[in-house]
């Protein structure tokens, strides 16, 4: 069971009370009061690690991939998305107008809320809190390790039956490093399996802290050419590749995930280079390489956030084409002696 919080400890460190619990105190300690920002908790996820899992989406990212399908994950602070189509109009409702701290913060056109007139969206949180239709949607809630774990542990019986557990995703799941590590530790204390989805773009010390609590890592490799990597994601790839070596050297099981974007990183040249790197520099020590299709997802979220969609001119190939291409790429990479698969559904080898 989840431990109770000792308010007096200030940091909110947790322990079982009573004498009998003393023996377990080392095993059961984690900082339930530590706070972080999460933009979604998705129960019953089955494509992000073994079994039935709960994915906790950590807000904030250090990359700016032009194909990102979770634009709401990029900024660390809470944001408000606006869906004018869902607004039933200020004539019939108007709850937000009553809750707004200053009248000019909401942009209303033809009696519908269409945008925010501020670069500090958090001041409009009270409006979202009263909106009955979901026209104003909040992404990013400041929460604690304890609150997140309460939600995660509600599906314990399903993890037990399926061998599942907690997966951290993002954004960059380790961008709020202390919070993320504490969640992983909490999961281990509670006996849950842990997976981390990460782009590896951070200092090596972050990895050092997380590694002891990581049962499986999903690591993104977006491009082997550092210049192209910088063009598509905003950062160079040297530190990412170093971290990948480090994580593999630690003995942690690693699955490589590559979003295959045609004409960007989805080229024979890049994928061969990736395979070669994995064989030559990593010793092929990854359990699987998943090639994921790129589809234009998240367009409506970009619009809700008032952000331009970077790939708007990109024409995604039809399903039969990308399915064929990805299968071919997987076969090509497998020829290097790697376990490359199409999509995220294949069983991860034990």
């Amino acid at each position, binding site marked *: 069971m989840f431990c109770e919080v000792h308010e007096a400890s200030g940091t909110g460190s947790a322990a079982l009370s009573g004498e009998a619990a003393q023996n377990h105190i080392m095993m059961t300690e984690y900082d339930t009061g530590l706070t972080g920002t999460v933009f979604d908790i*998705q*129960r*019953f*996820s*089955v*494509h992000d690690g*073994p*079994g*039935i899992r709960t994915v906790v989406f950590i807000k904030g990212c250090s990359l700016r991939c032009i194909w990102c399908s979770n634009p709401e994950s990029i900024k660390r602070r809470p944001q408000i998305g606006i869906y004018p189509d869902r607004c*039933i109009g200020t004539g*019939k*409702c*108007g*709850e937000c107008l009553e809750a707004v701290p200053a009248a000019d913060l909401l942009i209303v056109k033809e009696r519908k809320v269409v945008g925010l007139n501020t670069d500090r969206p958090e001041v409009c949180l009270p409006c979202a809190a009263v909106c*009955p*239709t*979901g026209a104003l949607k909040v992404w990013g809630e400041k929460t604690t390790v304890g609150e997140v774990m309460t939600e995660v542990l*509600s*599906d314990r*019986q*399903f993890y*037990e*039956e*399926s061998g*599942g557990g907690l997966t951290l995703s993002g954004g960059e799941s380790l961008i709020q490093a202390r919070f993320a590590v504490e969640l992983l530790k909490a999961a281990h204390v509670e006996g849950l399996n842990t997976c981390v989805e990460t782009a590896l773009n951070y200092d090596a010390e972050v990895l050092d802290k997380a590694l002891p609590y990581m049962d499986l890592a999903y690591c993104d490799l977006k491009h082997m050419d550092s210049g192209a990597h910088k063009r598509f994601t905003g950062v160079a790839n040297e530190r990412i590749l170093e971290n990948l070596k480090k994580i593999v050297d630690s003995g942690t099981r690693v699955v490589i995930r590559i979003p295959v974007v045609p004409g960007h990183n989805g080229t024979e040249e890049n994928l061969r280079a990736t395979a070669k790197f994995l064989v030559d520099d990593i010793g092929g020590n990854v359990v699987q390489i998943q090639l994921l299709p790129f589809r234009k997802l998240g367009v409506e979220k970009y619009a809700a956030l008032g952000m331009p969609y970077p790939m708007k001119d990109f024409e995604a190939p039809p399903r039969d084409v990308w399915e064929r291409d990805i299968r071919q790429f997987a076969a090509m990479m497998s020829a290097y002696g790697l376990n490359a698969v199409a999509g995220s*559904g*294949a*069983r991860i080898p034990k």
Partner: protein
Amino acid sequence: MGQIGYEEDSWGVGVSGVVNDPSPFPRINRLRDWYLDECPCTIDAERAVLLTEAYKKFENEPQLIKVARALAHVMRNVTLHIVDGQLLVGDSAAPPKSCPIYPEFSYSWIANELSEFPPRERPNNRYDYNDDTERQLLEITDYWQGKTVSDSILDRMTPEEMKGDFMGIMLYSTSLYHIAGVGHLVPDFDTLLKNGYGGLQQDVQDRLNALTGDDPDTEEQRHFYHAQLITLDATIDYIRRYAALAREKANTAGGQRRDELLRMADNIESISTNPPETFWQAYQLVHFAWSIIQIESNGHSVSWGRLDQTLYPFFLKDLAQGTASREFMQEVIECHAPLCASFMKLRDWVTTQANSGRGLGTMTVTLGGVDADGNDASNELSGMFIDMVAHTRLGYPWTAARFHENTPEWFSAKVAKAMRMGTGEPKIFSDQVIIPTMKLRGISDEDAHNYAIVGCVELSVPGREYGWHDSAYFSIARVLELAINDGYAIGHEDKGRLGPATGNLEDFQFFEEVQKAYEEQMAYWVETQARSTDIMDDVHREMKPLPYLSLLIEGCTETGKDVNTGAAPYNFTGPQATGVASTADSLAVIKQLVFEEKKVSAGELMDAIKSDWEGFDALYHLVNSDKMHQYGNDDDYADELAIYATDVYCDKVEGRPNPRGGIYQPGVYTVSANVPFGMVQAASPDGRKAHEPLSDCIGPVHTYVGSHDRKGPTAVIKSASKLHQQRMSNGTLLNLRFCPSSLCGESGVKNLVSLATAYFRKGMHMQINVLGRELLEDAYQHPEKYRGLMVRVAGYSAQWSDLSDELRRDIMTRTEMSFD
């Protein structure tokens, strides 16, 4: 068309029955095409005409003798059929895919529809018939006027019992047994397989001979045994007529079919009196036994019980002696699917709209589970029946798999692979929860371990229980409506106050007063419903004894009493609560908005629902939003109210005595009754508009503007697990829907099994729908393209193209439980 194979890993995910040639046996694929394509569904007059002749001729005989002679007259004279290529025979006293008519139960609606809204002109579920059939059916109308079971029930009901029933505001509906037979049982096949009809006949004769005395009770027993002997004689003759027909057909058939027909004739001849020797004979005998129950009465959900146990000794013996190969026995099992599917039941147009479907209904085969000692009982045959599901995809016979803590992985995986095809079969049940629940109702340990599924959901002891499992549907959502509206039904104020005067929501100062009113209304309406049901029980006992069925239910022959008198060891009456989540979410809105947050006044909320939310847009969206506590999200606030709402119902129902010496037991599921019950109810506080369906079974609320469950299937399962299902001994059902991608691959199977196993710690029964949104949209637009698509409509399997528009829309608004 989906690309599928015969082996379990290639059965496909979400392709349902939209496939060609799913069976490795060409014979089965031909029979499947015959069923799906070749002839239209029809109505047949022969049973009705023969039965009427007999009723006229034997009018002055005691009721037991009259009904026995009538059944015998039908069986001796009705035309028989053997479908080309079939290995099994036995019709419904009508041609395959044709509805026999049962005028003794109810007739005025048939006569009315024939004249006013002919079944051959229906927009869906249409039945063809020629003018001659129409004339024959109209000719007997006068004879049956005032003579049916339904007429007598109506005569005896007072206005008080009618006002809440389907002839009134339909707070509850007892319509099923009001207009038709009872069914909902598993016959004792084991004794029949052991002794044969000859053995049964000897037993009855011996008991008749042993009777002495001439007091009225003994005289009644004498009538009963006479009646049994009349039906047994007719049964043996009836079976022999099939043997003769097979020989006759063999004369004109060629090659292999000729030999097959001759073997069938020998088999049939032999089992007309003798116990069966082979698997094929045993299966044929079981089918005869079942089909004659259906000729005697049109009660549905007469189920097959645990055929993987019943037939296993014959399977082993055939293998050991080399009398049949596994492949041949598989073929026999698969032949049963099109045969079962071709049994049809004519329902009135209103019921058809609500239940949608032609099939006789829920003749379920139960597979797996534990034996009397608690050990796993699954065997090779259990797997072969699952193969049958995948190889036929016709929805018949229905299949149910029992899961327990030691269910072997091969079996649960195979079941999951069949489930993910998306035909709605098999449904799965939890031994862990069900066995203790049955024992709580006084069922012995051994019998509880041997339970089987009857109907969509219900649990029954094979051969030892007459459970009246589907006695009524009962809307607890409507009970709440009357509880906040001083006993008046919204929109029916002209009918006056219908329930006790428990006050208006505006009068209440505390939420507890709402609860008190709900409890008072519940007590009144449960009792009124039970009185209606008891009247039906009395009438069935007096007017429609079942001497043939009584041969196959323990206790009847032994005591010389008909099954309707309470001769079976176990006698229950099971009404089902409808609208659990609608009630829970309504209570949550009242509690949260009116009494706690005081955001809305009681008057405002009542105005909103009385005006169908017109002019209350913001409130309508608010109550449908995630700002409310709602059942299905693992939110204790709302889940506690769902527990409360169902506990009050169970409190009033459980233990009430019934006329057969048994008790009432509550069930909590809707099948598809949530649609018609929603159709007759005004808007409700949960955010439901007038006429919109109530919530399905024990699942969450889905309204036009959104589904109230937002956290996926694990949260729904957690919420449903909190209900006190161990009290709901007539059964519960949780429907979950998945999109195909979520169930693909090895991990999809494992996750589905894990989900079920986790639910089965506290939950009884789960079914799944597997459909992609894309497929569903297209299927909605073009139902004709999806002739083989089967959808589980809350415990009721039907073909997509036979579903009503309303029901199709209801399915489409359910959440897609995507894994992605």
